């Protein structure tokens, strides 16, 4: 982090420090509105033109007992004057609304970091609830930090005294007080939040006014008291030219599906069942029926994918969205889609597992489930986005593969990407790929009869024809039983089965996917950092740190996991060492070792949170220096400050 300080021309009291990047974490009780606060601060940063990345982190319980550690909800936002890759390892500023939030988040704050504490909640009772015998505000334990004690609840109540709201309701606006204070500290524009509050509570003018008053009171508190010695500026980022908006992964994925429907000129039918962290895709798509999108909230996961497959049989772009436990339930239907060779998008927003696991946390541990989690030889293409914005492109890519090759496609997003947000360069619709499809119109029997043979294949793609019910003369039956090559009648013939298994495999193996590109600035790196999915950000940030320290490292990131890019085997051979960080126990590493007999160094962590750039930088540095023992997993975290 670079800084530059000057006296503020505004009031002469506070100094303005220019920073290139800041990480702020808002933490409080689940009922304190921390997600909304973080979201609004993010929008302010976006409106100001910073690059940004966010990490919401909240419990699976809607309201865990108030004031307890399990009930803590937090939102971290990283904003900068240059292009950043992650939500940040450690917060420079931690805003805590109660003792539980302090206790569960303090360890992440580097020494010298800023703590802004709502002292009103630091009562004996609340302290005892989380195991503080003495108030950390009084026992000297916070000495290594810059602590700002603010009685946010009281100040908010005071500001709202004339609104007629009860004390309890008034205190509920304290999150807007915190937002106002931080907005002042970081010179954020406030018009967006004022507009947002007015619109959000349009039906409840009293609540709208209360939130606005609390927001302004927080701002004014910073401006008029002398409690804060510094304010900070983070200049707009120099991103590629264009129009930007803020977007989350689930939103971008939903837009990608809408776009795929438009670009293929097919109706979209989503069959889905609510599940964290994928439900927002169902919510978002349900808003866009004007794009010929039908959403079916089914009775269960199986019915969700069943409806998607039934619609695909009828000529729609069938989609189902879920998380890992839902994929387990959908497996049999994915197998039917493999057998019937119908296009279908299966979206898995991965979360911590196994079983119910960690519903609101992130993980990449469904890769092998996606690849092999079905009975029989059942190959399925797999793609994975590398950032929230990339979810849009990956949805279009998944649709391209499904429609071109008539196959179910697994799309592996994860909790970090799904809920995280970033600035997104809005694409020009004219540049989107054409996904139009041709349906079968004429009988295609190879024996010259007037029958339709459902399993006659395109010689290039090996895709079978998509013959829709309602097409005269093409009546045929498909299903889960093995079918005779070309003709498509039920067949138990041993040689036919062997041939069909190999044909289905060859079709998936033959899918055209782009080559993977390697970022190796000098061309002299001997170590390659390889990754897939949401770890793109931390790996990229770690590579920047390693390079900044004078060492060389190459980076490559996979968006296609089945089939793998054709040039991957050659790239793996070109480097002395390939290190592959994954938020699982080494699933892709297992696949690559088996596929390429390559000596992959697997680095794994399954903590429900994204990798930290500093952690990976240390791993990479050790490997470059050849000082890291083989097979070690978790590492101590580095506490030194570093740029990305």
């Amino acid at each position, binding site marked *: 982090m670079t800084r530059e300080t000057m006296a503020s021309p505004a009031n002469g009291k506070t100094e303005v420090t220019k920073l290139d990047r800041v990480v702020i974490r808002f933490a409080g009780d689940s009922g304190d509105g921390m997600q909304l606060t973080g979201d609004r601060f993010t929008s302010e940063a976006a409106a100001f033109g910073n690059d940004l990345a966010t990490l919401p982190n909240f419990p699976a319980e809607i309201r865990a007992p108030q004031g307890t550690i399990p009930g803590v909800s937090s939102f971290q936002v990283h904003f900068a004057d240059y292009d950043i890759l992650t939500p940040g390892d450690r917060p420079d500023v931690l805003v805590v609304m109660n003792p539980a939030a302090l206790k569960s988040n303090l360890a992440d704050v580097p020494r010298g970091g800023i703590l802004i504490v709502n002292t009103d909640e630091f009562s004996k009772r609340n302290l005892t609830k989380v195991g503080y015998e003495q108030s950390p505000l009084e026992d000297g334990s916070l000495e290594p930090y810059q602590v700002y004690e603010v009685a946010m609840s009281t100040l908010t109540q005071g500001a709202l005294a004339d609104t007629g709201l009860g004390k309890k309701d008034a205190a509920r606006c304290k999150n807007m007080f915190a937002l106002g204070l931080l907005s002042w500290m970081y010179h954020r524009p406030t018009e967006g939040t004022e507009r947002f509050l007015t619109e959000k509570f349009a039906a409840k003018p009293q609540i709208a006014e209360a939130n606005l008053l609390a927001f302004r009171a927080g701002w004014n508190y910073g401006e008029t008291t002398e409690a804060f010695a510094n304010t900070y500026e983070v200049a707009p980022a120099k991103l590629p030219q264009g129009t930007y908006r803020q977007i989350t992964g689930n939103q971008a994925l939903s837009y990608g599906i809408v776009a795929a429907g438009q670009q293929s000129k097919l109706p979209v039918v989503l069959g889905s069942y609510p599940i964290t962290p994928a439900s927002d895709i169902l919510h978002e798509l349900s808003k866009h029926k004007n794009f010929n999108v039908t959403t079916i909230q089914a009775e269960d996961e199986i019915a969700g994918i069943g409806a998607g497959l039934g619609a695909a049989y009828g000529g729609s772009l069938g989609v189902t969205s879920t998380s890992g436990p839902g994929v387990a339930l959908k497996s049999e239907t994915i197998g039917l889609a493999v057998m019937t060779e119908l296009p279908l998008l299966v979206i898995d927003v991965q979360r911590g597992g196994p079983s119910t696991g960690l519903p609101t946390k992130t993980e990449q541990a469904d890769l092998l489930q996606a690849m092999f989690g079905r009975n029989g030889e059942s190959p399925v293409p797999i793609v994975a986005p590398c950032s929230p914005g990339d979810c849009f492109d990956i949805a279009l890519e998944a649709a391209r593969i499904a429609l071109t090759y008539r196959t179910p496609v697994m799309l592996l997003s994860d909790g970090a990407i799904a809920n995280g947000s970033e600035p997104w360069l809005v694409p020009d*619709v004219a540049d989107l790929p054409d996904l139009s499809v041709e349906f079968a119109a004429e009988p295609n029997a190879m024996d010259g009869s007037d029958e339709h043979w459902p399993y006659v294949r395109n010689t290039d793609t090996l895709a079978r024809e998509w013959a829709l019910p*309602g097409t005269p003369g093409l009546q045929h039956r498909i299903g889960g039983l093995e079918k005779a090559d070309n003709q498509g009648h039920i067949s138990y013939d041993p040689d036919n089965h062997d041939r069909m298994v190999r044909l289905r495999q060859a079709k998936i193996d033959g899918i055209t996917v782009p080559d993977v590109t390697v970022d190796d600035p000098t061309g002299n790196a001997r170590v390659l950092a390889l990754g897939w999915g949401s770890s793109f950000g931390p790996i990229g940030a770690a590579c920047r740190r390693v390079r900044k320290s004078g060492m060389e490292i190459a980076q490559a990131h996979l968006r296609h996991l089945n089939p793998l890019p054709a040039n991957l085997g050659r790239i793996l051979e070109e480097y002395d060492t390939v290190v592959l960080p994954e938020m699982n126990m080494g699933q892709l590493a297992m696949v690559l070792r088996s596929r390429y007999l390559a000596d992959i160094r697997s680095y794994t962590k399954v903590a429900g949170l994204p990798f930290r750039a500093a952690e990976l930088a240390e791993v990479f540095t050790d490997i470059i220096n050849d000082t890291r023992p083989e097979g070690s997993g978790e590492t101590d975290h580095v506490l030194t400050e570093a740029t990305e």
Partner: protein
Amino acid sequence: MSTHLGLPDLGGLADVPTTDAPQKAKDYKSDQEVRWCPGCGDYIVLNTMQSFLPTLGLKPENIVFVSGIGCSSRFPYYMNTYGMHSIHGRAPAIATGLAVSRPDLSVWVVTGDGDALSIGGNHLIHALRRNVNLKILLFNNRIYGLTKGQYSPTSEEGKRTKSTPMGSLDHPFNPLSLAIGAEASFVARALDSDKKGLTEVLTAAAQHRGSAFVEIYQNCPIFNDGAFDVIKDKDEAARRLIPLRPGEPITFGPEEEYGVVRSGFAGLETAKVSEVGLDNVVVHDPTITDPAYAFALSRIGGQDLEHTPTGILRQVSRTTYDDAARAQVAQAKQAKPADLQGLLTGNDTWTV
């Protein structure tokens, strides 16, 4: 009360294209060899279906059969229509996706007692409550045939099978009661051997807009032979079968000497007409909205087949899920153009 969304009350085939070309039963036979066991009731149902479909005058390419797994679920392979033999229990879910997206198709689900009531019980009740425009034919032979003879959810208590050598412990479902409990809008029963009755029920089911649930008693000659013999024997049938005719008093028996009368709280029972008087015999009305009436009718028929109502128990008009889903899409399209660039850009942008 049923919820109407102001949609016209159309027949089940309103959007399905018709043809004037003459059709025969053989036009609906596929070139596949039928592989059910000799004497299987499924043959009769298949033949009835193939003779009945031409009477609808639909374009054959606009008819789709979707099935699950089990003996009956091989049905689509033998029909020269479009068809999907799917996975165990899931046919109603798959057919829902198809019916919602394709109003121009007449979609039939063929299922069995194990497929529909055991592994697929959830999908069945939800398809029925949503009232998706599907015709669901449940071939009930009270046994698992394809897996060679285990008891099913409609087998009688104490039934001895390979998996229940000391007798089954399960209390069976009454499929009609289950369907009515899920507020199915069309519920009927027919016998495989009764071609005329089955054809009447199938015709009404096809014309019904919404989910039509038809239980077909079907004999498995290998693993549960004679399960329905008591209602196929001419004399016994006259005593046990209760044919339901809309608008007529529900009487039965060789001399129509028995009738159905009210009993207790919302219940029905059988009585001798001579003892209660014809005026007290219930006049059948399948259009009564309250499912309690049809439910009471379904309870007259027991597992022991002592009394067995046949025909249409319930036929009410209620908004279908697929019509409503399409109406929402149409409404959204009318309200807002499909401006993809506008969607992607949103309302909150900045320019670099």
